[in-house]
């Protein structure tokens, strides 16, 4: 069952990296917004 085709990317690991990387980017942007407008 794990051999099912992974959508868009070659492996699920890329998906996991995308999700975690996006979270890091969001936190960085929020930090900059907090600093800039405080």
């Amino acid at each position, binding site marked *: 069952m794990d051999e099912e085709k992974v959508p868009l990317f070659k492996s699920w690991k890329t*998906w996991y990296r995308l999700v975690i990387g*996006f979270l890091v980017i*969001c*936190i960085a942007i929020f930090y900059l917004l907090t600093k800039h407008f405080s």
Partner: protein
Amino acid sequence: MSRPDWIVLALTLLGIIAYGLYKGRTTRDLDGYFLSNRAVPWYMVLLGIMGTQASAVTFLSAPGQAYTDGMRFVQYYFGLPLAMVVLCISFVPVFHRLKVYTAYEYLEQRFDLKTRTLTSFLFLLQRGLSTGISISAPSIILSSLLGWDIVWTNIFMGGLLIIYTVSGGAKAVAYTQQLQMVIIFSGMTIAAYLVVHRLPAGVGLTEILHMGGKAGKLNIITTGFSRKGGGFDWNDRYNLLSGIIGGFFLALSYFGTDQSQVGRYLTARSVSESRLGLLLNGLVKVPMQFLILLLGVMVFAFYQYNHEPVFFNKSQIDLLAHSKYKDSLSFVTTRYDAAENQRLSTLRGPGTTDGPADLVDPSLLESRKEALEKEKAGYKATIRRWLDDPAVGGDSNDTNYIFLRFVTDYLPKGLVGLLIAVIFLAAWGSIAATLNSLASCTIIDFHRRFSSKQLTTNREYRLSQMYTFFWGIFCVAVAQLAYNLGNSLIEAVNVLGSLFYGVILGIFLVAFYRPKVTGWPVFISAVIVEIGVIVLNILSRKGIVSLSFLWFNLVGAAGVMLLSEVLQAVMKKKPVDEKPG
């Protein structure tokens, strides 16, 4: 509400019921009733997961929270994307491989019957009560603000959805959630547009952010450490650390062990579709929550240019008007309105016809505005103090009423009805999924597991419908009880989830990651740690221990994992063969 509002509200709600009945009409067995025949595509899994998590209070409270406390609440969701990744790696493949109906079935295969039964029972107890509260909370808000009868509001909030949930099961739930989410996002987007549209010319998003930042509303990232060097505040609910760690354990337990969520991604047609739905939820949840909170900052900016009520919940002002404070109330509201009018006139600037012509110096103007803000805050604090008086018995928490008061006071006819429908639909999506999951646990983990009779497919299907109906009535009854008992029950049930989630997660983590631990050690550990978490909560409430509820999930999960290892070593039970997925 005006007649167009009633028409929009009625058409939207009736349309959803009809759509649910239509889509669920082909369901005739347990696979269809609880798992949609495992044929749901990824985007419906995504909308189902989001629709189940987002309750009515999500859309009522979050903008109000940003208005009063700022946007730091978004940090509560930082652990969610990480939890989605762990779920996709460990939980999803196992649940799909074993073809379970409920998450707790897996625990019998991994440990034993008593562990499965205990965990499923804790879920039914906690979810049954908390769903009653999730009906009650928005019902109280709507009945307070719109003057509706609470019994009828509860019935409409928690009763009408029973029709399509009983009839069509998971399929009806999945399809209606899809439509509900589209209507909810459309309604919220229109509301956001109208807030900005109603601001004076030249005031756009940048000015809103500057205004919010100056008032401390853009506190999106907070560390939880005191500025005076007082160390980390363990009682602070929303900061970066508690959001990532506490939020991670909360999200892992909610999405991984709560059947109302597990039941959504078990309906997917493959492991890939489940994973994709969960991972996309991890991608969109934080930005979505950010935007909902930003709406609160927009409403805050709106009230910088418009008359802000002294208290948003009108019914509480009426309550004070009939209390011993009625004369003082009249004095305070008059003074408040005068201060608010003066503040608004300072905005028009010096030299204008109704502006303060004597204040030509901008710095004087600014200091006068600040003085008026302080004066207003004093009057608001006085109102809250009166409402907290036991002789009055009021509710001094105004947060949940801010957004809805803006909607009813300033949005055009028809749109008010749509936004009220959004509140109903948000509640329905969440409650319908929960009723379906409560029924699935009742029949799969209890009725079918302990019944000596062999049930026919049709009999199982009919029983499932009966259990869904029973839980629907139960939840509406709890909602009514919560209203009669007041805030005490609501607070108790809100804490209930965090008391049980950690321990349930601990059981599942041992099941997945500690293959040598057997049934008895994990069962005994769960009981001991559960008692420990309850004691910790009592100590926390009495102020003896300073710990926010988010950390209970970590304490419960880590406690079960560690203690079960120790007990396993002491009891020296024979290892099991099951390997983690």
